[in-house]
Structure formats: structure tokens, C-alpha cells
């Protein structure tokens, strides 16, 4: 089985550049212990498949969420995001500090298209790897 530390590093790698600090890894492990006490084994199995097979968590997450599934993956990403957002290194990823109107409009338009692509890809991955 993959460990929670592997999971934290893999999820971080898919969203943000650079390595994940050890302090955040430790907090991620502890947060999982505190917040996700009642995780069913099949849900853990899905996380194991995603991490060990290097599946795209962005795609799988949106595919599961759009189908109305209350997924463990969403909760794990959310935990990681909270732990990162309170660190100054990640401040620019969450807060826009300069006026960048054109960039923002293009990025938002791109996000809509990317989401559609991610949903299709995620739906395929969910079917291919039996993630539900």
C-alpha cells in the first residue's frame, strides 16, 4: 500500500511546483488521522490505485464530483490545500497580487475548457480503473 506521505507528495506534485516540505507532510498525515477516521477500506483502495498508478487526480476528482459522488479524493485534496494556503510560499497561488485582467480572462476561459477535458479524461480513468 502507498503511504499517506506518498499520497501527500503525489497530490502536491499534481497541483504545485517544487517539493513538499516535510512539515506539511507530517501535518497531512496527522490531519488524515484526525479528520478522516471513518474511511471505508474501498475508498482507501481507490486512493491507493490513484497514487500507485499515477492517475490524474484532477481528472478523477472532477469526474467523481460531477457524478455526485462524495469522494475521499476531494476531501484529501481539500486538506492539502488548507495546509498549503496558510504558508507564505503558496500565497501567490491563492491571492492575486497584481492587476492581470487579460491573463485572468484567458486563464478562466482555459479553466472551463480544461475542466471539460478533465471530466472526459476522469470519466475514462474511473471506468478503466474501476474507481467506483
Amino acid at each position: 500500500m502507498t503511504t499517506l506521505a506518498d499520497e501527500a507528495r503525489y497530490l502536491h506534485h499534481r497541483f504545485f511546483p517544487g517539493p513538499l516540505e516535510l512539515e506539511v507532510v507530517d501535518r497531512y498525515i496527522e490531519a488524515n488521522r484526525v479528520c478522516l477516521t471513518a474511511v471505508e477500506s474501498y475508498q482507501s483502495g481507490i486512493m491507493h490505485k490513484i497514487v500507485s498508478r499515477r492517475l490524474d487526480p484532477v481528472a478523477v476528482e472532477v469526474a467523481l464530483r460531477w457524478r455526485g459522488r462524495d469522494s475521499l479524493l476531494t476531501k484529501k485534496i481539500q486538506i492539502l490545500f488548507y495546509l498549503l494556503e496558510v504558508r507564505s510560499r503558496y500565497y501567490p497561488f491563492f491571492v492575486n497580487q497584481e492587476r492581470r485582467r487579460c491573463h485572468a480572462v484567458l486563464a478562466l476561459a482555459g479553466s472551463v475548457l480544461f475542466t471539460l477535458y478533465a471530466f472526459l479524461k476522469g470519466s475514462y480513468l474511473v471506468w478503466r480503473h474501476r474507481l467506483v
Partner: protein
Amino acid sequence: MFDVIVVGSGPAGTSAAYALRGTSVLVLDVGYRGMPAASLKGNIYELRRRYADLFQPLIGERFEGLRNIWQRKISLKLKAPLMSFVLRDWEKLCPLRSDNFEGVVSFAQGGLANAWGAGVFRFTSRDLEDFPVKASELTPFYDELTALMGVCGRNDDLAPYFETEAQLLPPIHLTRFASDLLHRYEQRHRYFRSRGITVGYPRLAVLTRNHNGRSAYQYENLEFFRPYDPAIYNPVFTLDSLIREGSIRYEARQLVLRYAEGPSGVEVLAKNVDDGRMTTFRARRLVLAAGTLSTTKLVLQSNNDYDERLPILDNPMSLVPLFRVDKIGDALDSSEGSLAQLVVIYDGPGVSRNVQATLYSASGALRSDILFDLPLSIKGNLCCAKYLAPAMGVLMVFHPGIVRKENYIRLAPDNTLEVNYECEPLGAIERRLIEAFRKIGYWGAAALCRFPPMGTALHYAGTLPMKATPGRYQTYPNGRLFGTKGVYVVDGACFPSLPAKNLTFTIMANAMRIASNIRSDIG
């Protein structure tokens, strides 16, 4: 033997104690207290840039800031680690069971007002239609409270809904999003008024200049994380000064379990929540101000009544996001505050009682609090949260609470409160507001509206309503509980109806009114 025992130290209890100061008053309270926020001084955005890691004050060693991920959602203000004292132990001390009502109870000093939006709105004669009390009876107490707390705002288009106020402090500085909206509303005034929509400044118990020894609001955006901002009124400020002056006696850690009346007054049985020791306190009068849910439990428990279904009220609410396309990609202005910005009243077709909305900016809270509610992929949502936040505001819409016979609160034999609360589907007024604001360049979509479950508004009321001729489990206009000689209800429980307004200011004024009558009574 005390003259009066007051149960609770929230807005009602503190206001009652304030009106009774000088008599022999005992306040019984569990009274959990928060820690001072030593590490949170300055603007939240400056702090987040300056300090490598703000895990402790924003998330907490016990991961309090993550609780909405794994437990049912609560207000963002209640989940911050430094605010966790507000809901400490409530599920143990006043358990509540429901499939459709997500209420909470506070046993903190100051009660749920530790996390309030500080909106202070007088009830007008129209709001008080179902009350056996006239607006003029509340006016002197509203005035006294306004002088005590300090209220900012402006006598603008909303004055008919909030009454004209003589002693207002200047209003807060609006965000650009809100000031532009107000400006455009003024330009299209006739259009909005013809549709029954009025926009204006909120009345807030927030100091915009120093007042009564408290300092003015600093626009630090820390409302979501830090308790006891001196600029934002908290009943604890009044409670502390009453204790300091020796005007009242305050007993903390006392959970009142029941009361019983005897020939010489009222006996109150309380349990120390730390060591379990039981104590009986005696007084000539008892004032119940523990908050609607706790007060209801106390009354039913004292009557050993595990059958009666009492009415209950709360404001159904919705969240309506609005966007300004021309502000997408603007830099976040960290000096803008996260307090209520504007109030919108809908008093047009389709409603018998007006609906009130408050506009908030998207600043202050963590982006992680909102980005998982957006509809795109997580990467897309991150992009939205970053670039849309300066272009976004959220209308928090309150609808009137209506008495319905299927809605009830009951004490189950296991001493758990049972609540059933159903409400009509919402959305029609929200669509009208979206349509109107679109005319001035503020875009919304019905699909993006959110309808939190009942109980989320925290405006609980109406379980022991005041009536001109009350019956069982109802109260007289002077607050006295039917069938008792000296037990008074002064919190939201005694409200017979619930307009679409924050009720805290009226709870305080009404508690003072009732307490002043008691004071006259006991000489």
C-alpha cells in the same frame, strides 16, 4: 437569596444584567472564554505574506479549521481555532437531533454573538405586528444600547425599514465592489424602487471612531479568525465591565439544569461542568436568557415534559454570488474589510413580508473555504478563486421565519432536543434580485445560488412566544412565563414572529425592557 438570577451571558443575558445592575443580580453561566489572539495582529494578508507559516492561528493544532471537511458545515467564523470556544462542548451539554435543522448552541461568554455579523436592525411597527409590544416601548432601549455599543451607518433609503437613528457613527469604508454597486443603484434609483428593491448602508455595532474606551475598526480582515475585536461589539465587553464594577455577581462553569418555584421565590439547580458538583441558588425572580434552544430545554426539563411539541422559528437563508466582469483579474485590495457592506431589502411583488439581504465581499476567509464549492475542476476552481475574488460579492439573503405546525422542538426522554424544520423552497426572490442587479452590471446565476440547511442562520426564536393572553408555554408581554410567578424569558424564545432581519439588537432591547420592568417590580 438574590433579587434576580440571570441564566446566560449572551446578548439577552448581558442586556438584562445591565438593566438590573445595582440590584442583587447573579449571572449563572457555563461561560467558556476564548484566548487572546497574540499572534494575530495586523492585516491578515500582510500576515500571510510576512510569516512563513500561520498553521496554528488559522488551522490549529487540533485541525479545527478543517472541521467543515469531515463534519457538518458550520459558519466559517465558528471553525477558526481561536473561535472554537464558542461551540465548545455544546453537543455534550445540549444535544440536538434533527434530520433537517442544523442548529448549534453556545455555552461561551457572549454566546453566539462572538461570531455575529454585528448587524443591528431595529424592528419597525410592521416587524412587530405579531408582538404584544409596541415599537415605542422598545425605542428607549434601542437608544440606550446604541449609545452603549456604538452603531455605525447612515440614515439613507433604508431608514423606513430600520427607523431613523440620531446617534449613528459614520459608516464603514465600503469595498470598491460595494461602493460601485451603491453608486449604480443611486443612478438607477427609480428602476430599483419600482421593483421594490432598496439598497443602503448596514447598521453595524462596529466602531468607526473610538467610543466608550474602545478603539475604531482597523480593516484587518481578521473577523474570521480572531475573537474580541474591540471595534466589534461583543456582550462580553459589557459583562466584563459589570463584573469589574461589582454591579453583578458572576458564577462561571454553572450549567443550569432546572428551576422550581416556592413560596419565597425560585430555586435554581446548577451543575458545575468541571467537577460535577450540584448547587442550588435562590432568588426572587429568574430571568432565562440562555439562548432560544437552551432556554426551551430548561423550561421543558423543569416541567418534566417530554411530550410537548413547541413551535420554532429561524430565518431560511440563501447565498447569492454576484460578479463584476470588469473587475476580473483585479489585484486583491488587502485594506478592504470583510464586514457586511450593504443591505438590500426586497419589498416587491411576491412577498407579504420583506426579505433582507446583506452583501459581503469575498475577502477575509481562506480561498480553500470557497474553492471546493465552485463547479470546475480543482485547478479551475483555484484559478476562479484567485481571479474572481476581487470581482465577487455574496448576498446573504434572509427570509422571514414563519410559524408552521409541522415545525417543532421537543425534549426527548434522553434529554436530547428534537427539532423538525421544513420550509418552502426558496429561489424566486433570489432570481428577482439577480435580474435587477444584472441591469447595473452585477451578474449572478440562479444555478450558483446556495441554500444552506435550516438552522444555519443561527436566528432561533419563537419557542415560548409572547402573547397578550398567553397559554401554556407562552409568555406575557412582560416576559413572564405563563403559570409561573417569577420566571421570565428574555431571549429569542419569546419572539412570536421572526422578520427577515438579524434579531440580536431586538433581543437585547427586549431583554432590557423586561429587566427594567422586573427592576421596578422588586423595588
